[in-house]
């Protein structure tokens, strides 16, 4: 597979991961690299912006331009970098706490604005880097050190994303690299905000939602499923339990992106424009 491509997998070998052996993050890393290779993107063309958590380390373990930002803040950094240089392929990377907890407000509004970035959320339903507390997506009743009586109602990121105005909403599974890399490719290729929520087993702190647990439940969306049907997508988004759908749950094509609406981008990437103070000269007359 790799040899068919102009860009080689070896170009995406970064630092040695510090993840636990067997961590779902390895599958996500492999899928990201495979997607970038298959899209023939070179590392310098890609900007990976991450938050804090084990997911936030992913950009260091592949190769590309990297901005590892604060907890919950990859989206604002990523969308602004995209505006500044729309030629970059911008991928934001978060965990479930980063995306849906600390960064919830950015998550909501970035989807509404339809920035042209891909948002990869490693959703392991637990805070792992801080050693095992409940997350916004922990299943109800999930017992942790901070939720001895069990976690409360979880946030449904897929449903929230569809309602908030995201134009590409997908779910995949870290244990299925073929499926996940195809979702990441579709997300990057999508013009607009693409959310990919990745079911990711945490082998150390989540003994409930394990590889086995997910494998018994996930199923690929049937061929007749129409992701353009928003009502059907909302219904599909609510499916969680014995059966969990994976695939592109909702997709709306042709929606103007945030960048499309920016007048300042009509003349090409702002980073390529020369700076000239004399241009401001014309503004002074209105103050006289």
């Amino acid at each position, binding site marked *: 597979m790799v040899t068919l491509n102009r860009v080689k997998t070896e170009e995406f070998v970064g630092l040695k991961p510090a993840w636990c052996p067997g961590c779902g993050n390895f599958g996500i890393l492999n899928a990201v690299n495979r997607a970038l290779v298959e899209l023939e993107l070179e590392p310098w063309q890609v900007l990976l912006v991450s938050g804090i958590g084990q997911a936030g380390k992913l950009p260091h373990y592949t190769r590309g331009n990297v901005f590892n930002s604060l907890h919950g803040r990859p989206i604002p*950094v990523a969308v602004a970098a995209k505006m500044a240089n729309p030629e970059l392929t911008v991928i934001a990377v978060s965990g479930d706490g980063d995306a849906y907890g600390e960064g919830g407000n950015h998550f909501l509004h970035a989807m509404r604005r339809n920035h042209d970035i891909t948002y990869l959320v490693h959703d392991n339903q637990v805070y792992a880097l801080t050693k095992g507390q409940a997350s916004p997506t922990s299943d109800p009743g999930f017992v942790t050190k901070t939720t001895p009586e069990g976690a409360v109602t979880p946030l449904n990121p897929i449903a929230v994303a569809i309602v908030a105005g995201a134009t590409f909403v997908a779910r995949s599974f870290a244990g299925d690299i073929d499926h996940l890399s195809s979702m990441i490719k579709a997300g990057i290729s999508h013009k607009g905000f693409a959310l990919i929520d990745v079911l990711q087993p945490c082998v150390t702190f989540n003994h409930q939602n394990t590889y086995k647990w997910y494998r018994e439940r996930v199923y690929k969306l049937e061929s007749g499923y129409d992701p353009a049907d928003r009502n059907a997508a909302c219904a599909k988004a609510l499916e969680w339990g014995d059966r969990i759908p994976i695939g592109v749950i909702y997709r709306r094509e042709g929606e103007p992106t945030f960048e499309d609406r920016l007048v300042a981008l009509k003349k090409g990437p702002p980073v390529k424009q020369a700076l000239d103070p004399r241009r401001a000269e014309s503004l002074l007359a209105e103050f006289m």
Partner: protein
Amino acid sequence: MAVKRPVDVNFMIGGEAGQGVQSVGVLLGKVFARGGFHVFADQDYESRIRGGHNFMRVRTSSRKTEAVSETVDMLLAINKETIDLHQPELASSGVIIYDGDTIKDVKSNGFLFSVPMARLAQEKTGDKLMSNTVALGAALRLVGYDMALMDGLLRDHFGGDVGEANVKAAHAGYDYAAQNFRTEFPHRLEPIGAARMFLTGNEAIALGAIAAGCKFIAAYPMTPATPILEYLATKAKDMDILVVQPEDEIAAINMALGASFAGLRAMTATSGSGFCLMVEGLGLAGVTETPCVIVNGQRPGPAVGLPTRTEQGDLAFVVHAACGDFPRAVLAPATIEDAFWVTVKAFNLAERYQVPVIILTDHYLAGSYATVDKFDMSRVTIDRGMVYAAAPGGDGYKRHKVTVNGISPRAFPGQKEVLVATDSDEHDEAGHLTESAEERRAQVQKRQRKAFELKHHGITPPELRGPKRADLTLIGWGSTYGAIKEAVELLLREGKSANWLHLNELWPFPAEPVADILCDAKESFVVESNASGQLAQIIRAETGKAVEGKILRYDGRPITPAYIVDHLRKESCCYGNVK
């Protein structure tokens, strides 16, 4: 032009929110600016959309003036409350212009001049809304001003039929005053020279940002900084600026950092509470060495405080805000003209030292208007600092390379064969996270070296104004410049011995020059709009020297020359007070 007697006339316009107080004030200021006068105008308004009491003071002088005067020579009262509230400020020769048809039962010790503004507006233009313009015409007649300048301004400002109607309304007021004002107003204002610019501190900052090549602003609306975002939004198309109103201040600063990392000059603007939300992002700028300009237009805090009032209460906060050690610069424009040049410098410092730069203004400076000489764009320099030139054959690029002065060449993502990486975690030279003690020491020391460079090569040391040795030394920072300057002039006219130190570049604190000046001071006072004397605290911490005297104001109103002198009369040895 013949030498004329100096003039200094203070107009006040008062009314409810929504009655056009600001538009009348701005037109009045602008028409005098067109005649070459120095004008300073401040606004006083409440945190509401309609009603309440608003006023604007427009001080017009033949000499450069950068402070408000508390004595009103002419009061344009749009409502009765204005007359009731501002009687005490009226000069003995002062005049109140009002509409006696609509404002009844007026009692005043001052000279009342009723102009049937609404009736004249209706008669001459068919639109009662022009009544404020009638008042403007009457006011200009009293000071004997050139109506041709007013006609031109109204046509430029409103344009078309609306402009012509306003010209008619202004002339109606002018003619009415000519026929009915039977006494002599003691002040004459005849044009004295070429037109000047007339703008607010916020507008000066926004213009400075555009001149400096700022291409990105993300800001969440908050008084008094909102007009910066609004102005840049109106120029986004012509000046190619990315303007974003994000979901909150946290997004605003993080967006500015994303844009800056990608290669643009970027800024955000807020007030104290919004800055509080930005503090983690400030630290991110520090550790990732991402240049960024942050405007904090201060208002009285803590928390929401007094939203439409002024204070200098965030100084101690902004110089220390965020966890950990990292260099930053804090600049505080002294005047509206200075706001332009400080902003230009802020962008240069940010990129040269790869640090966040905070511009500390306040409601008073941000929202006040002043005349300035037209900004000379040929004096604006853009210094983008050390930019990385890729060596052929491979990406040995290290974003956080350890260097002698701590500054690492900057590259931007999207350059072939170059990978740019940075991290909010402590990182190695290449920008990847590390827990190595050795790497940590190297990066901390590198950032500390930048702080040293910034302090000794970036910050311009303040100058002592006036005689080197004096009985009294006043020390101020930021927007109190005009008030202190005028207070010192008053002291000198009274035969007192006084000098004055003003800081507009506050951090890294220029400790050595300030310490030297304080060594020579006999009696010193800080003048600050806050409750604790925050500059005095910083001076103590940075120089070991105590400034005993403090002239403080924290009621949300601006410090005026009279406020300073009144305090000195009660507290200074110069006035025979014993300590």
